[in-house]
């Protein structure tokens, strides 16, 4: 993309949510805030908590790499386009 950021689906371990966070959304926001803010802060698109557990976010390569190393993160998958059939 023109801004060097890409969208990803991030699956996290639900059981890793620290009890100090009142909601999964708060935890997901906190996870993103803990990432390097270069070149821009990571942006949360959605927080998921029923069908799946995790979030989608706009991330730089550095932020993506940091998330992949995070112990609560199971996978980081690029946001793909599908098509109507």
């Amino acid at each position, binding site marked *: 993309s023109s801004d060097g950021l890409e969208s990803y689906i991030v699956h996290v371990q639900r059981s890793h949510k620290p009890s100090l966070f009142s909601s999964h959304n708060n935890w997901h926001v906190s996870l993103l805030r803990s990432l390097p803010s270069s070149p821009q802060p990571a942006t949360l698109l*959605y927080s998921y908590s029923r*069908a799946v557990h995790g979030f989608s976010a706009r991330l730089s390569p550095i932020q993506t790499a940091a998330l992949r190393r995070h112990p609560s993160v199971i996978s980081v998958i690029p946001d793909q386009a599908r098509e*109507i059939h």
Partner: protein
Amino acid sequence: TTHTPAFLGFSQNSGLWSNSNYGEDVIVGVLDTGIWPEHPSFSDSGLGPIPSTWKGECEIGPDFPDSSCNRKLIGARAFYRGYLTQRNGTKKHAAKESRSPRDTEGHGTHTASTAAGSVVANASLYQYARGTATGMASKARIAAYKICWTGGCYDSDILAAMDQAVADGVHVISLSVGASGSAPEYHTDSIAIGAFGATRHGIVVSCSAGNSGPNPETATNIAPWILTVGASTVDREFSANAITGDGKVFTGTSLYAGESLPDSQLSLVYSGDCGSRLCYPGKLNSSLVEGKIVLCDRGGNARVEKGSAVKLAGGAGMILANTAESGEELTADSHLVPATMVGAKAGDQIRDYIKTSDSPTAKISFLGTLIGPSPPSPRVAAFSSRGPNHLTPVILKPDVIAPGVNILAGWTGMVGPTDLDIDPRRVQFNIISGTSMSCPHVSGLAALLRKAHPDWSPAAIKSALVTTAYDVENSGEPIEDLATGKSSNSFIHGAGHVDPNKALNPGLVYDIEVKEYVAFLCAVGYEFPGILVFLQDPTLYDACETSKLRTAGDLNYPSFSVVFASTGEVVKYKRVVKNVGSNVDAVYEVGVKSPANVEIDVSPSKLAFSKEKSVLEYEVTFKSVVLGGGVGSVPGHEFGSIEWTDGEHVVKSPVAVQW
């Protein structure tokens, strides 16, 4: 849907419709391009209050007022954050699109009205397919989740919609969306991952198999917890014959509704001799096509756009000819110029005629809507994506086929029936084709079954549809594959065409609990913690041991798919069946139709159920007698079936074998 209910065998006084009260109060979540709420298919006349279990919302906006929702369309939401961020660099699409759930494309209104649209009298597209349009579950409620936009449908938005649909309390998710080409690996496939979560909540997830046929291994949405639907024809045609100057009549199809051509023969030219074989706009030489009928080849650009290109160049009409890729599959289009589509064989003959004749001519005769036994139906659409399942060959996909060719259903008021900018027309109903159209048919059936059997799991509902499907045309011959003109097989049509009235009372079901899907994932190689993408709850990982499968093929699926590597190889699959018939003491006996070069042994061959034993298991032993098979329609593939009967029910599972 002015005809598919009749084709599916529905009647008002018996069968699945009356035994489910048309799906009343079941909630179908349609994840698609949104909805046109003013459409009569979404009238709530005659419906009771919104189900008390519903927790969803109707998201309002400038073009989607609060009055958009009612007791039929009980929820509508739009998910675009993923789309907008992806389109950030190219705002040309995003800027002009409404961010409300309003359907500006048509596809979502079509699929929603097919699954659960209300009854609408005098529906037609320019008098084609005239009749009473009705969704399969006409009293079910609809929740529309807009996930697809001009630039595509993004996983982040799809997952958000699935997550919300679970929270809102839908019972069925209908998703006519997927990857193009082959399916992604389960752990990177957001639809598979989201569908797993929805299934955990007891939601049936019905998905289109894709339109990437006729190549093998093209089926998408093939996770075993998904109900995967291919597309087939019904006994209704929109005939428009091409008649060449030598008197030959070529059967074609068209939804053209403008002024007719003169009844006399007109000069006929081949587009390839006039500047553009595929009839691209602006590429045809006007001096060569003016006043003539132009034969255009299919492919490259939109079919209706080809006719428009002919019209712009001054042509009088168009014959659109399939190439070998699409074979004999005919798709009716509401062309802007007098036009018909013919099959590949006819196309070859007409091209030859043009080449060898001094002054080739043709005319097009429009015959309108024809319902009847000729040609036989159902037949599998060439475009319908096929197996074998390229991710897990021991799980047969697609599961079933359903009507998906030339389906009339509701349409948006925003664009014309061709969805092209050049089409100024606006219609209430449109006729289109795709596995997108077959999927909501089955979603509606799932809603009916959910109402008739509220205690059935998603797997049991799938099992009922699979084991009661049929694999012969109404002529009594095996279902034909329109791509080849030869008999279809289970890698193309799965178990066959759905038969909803039989699915109401299948006799036995192959049930699958979530923990068995977990065991399946372990059997195909997923390990902790990666498997948590699906499970969320680490304790479910215990199922890998407690419900351990010998192989992935041991999953209690209602069909069989076997892969052999060598002669003499033996493969054993275990299955568990639950008696859901009214006779608790039913006794079932097995009947086996072995694929060529394969021996099948079922043990035991008789299942005696009782009040105490409503669940029984059996084991199937498949033995490869000759390496490679090769006597069937596809080398290395053979097909058969295993069916259990108690004299009243026939519980039939297809068997597909690969070497």
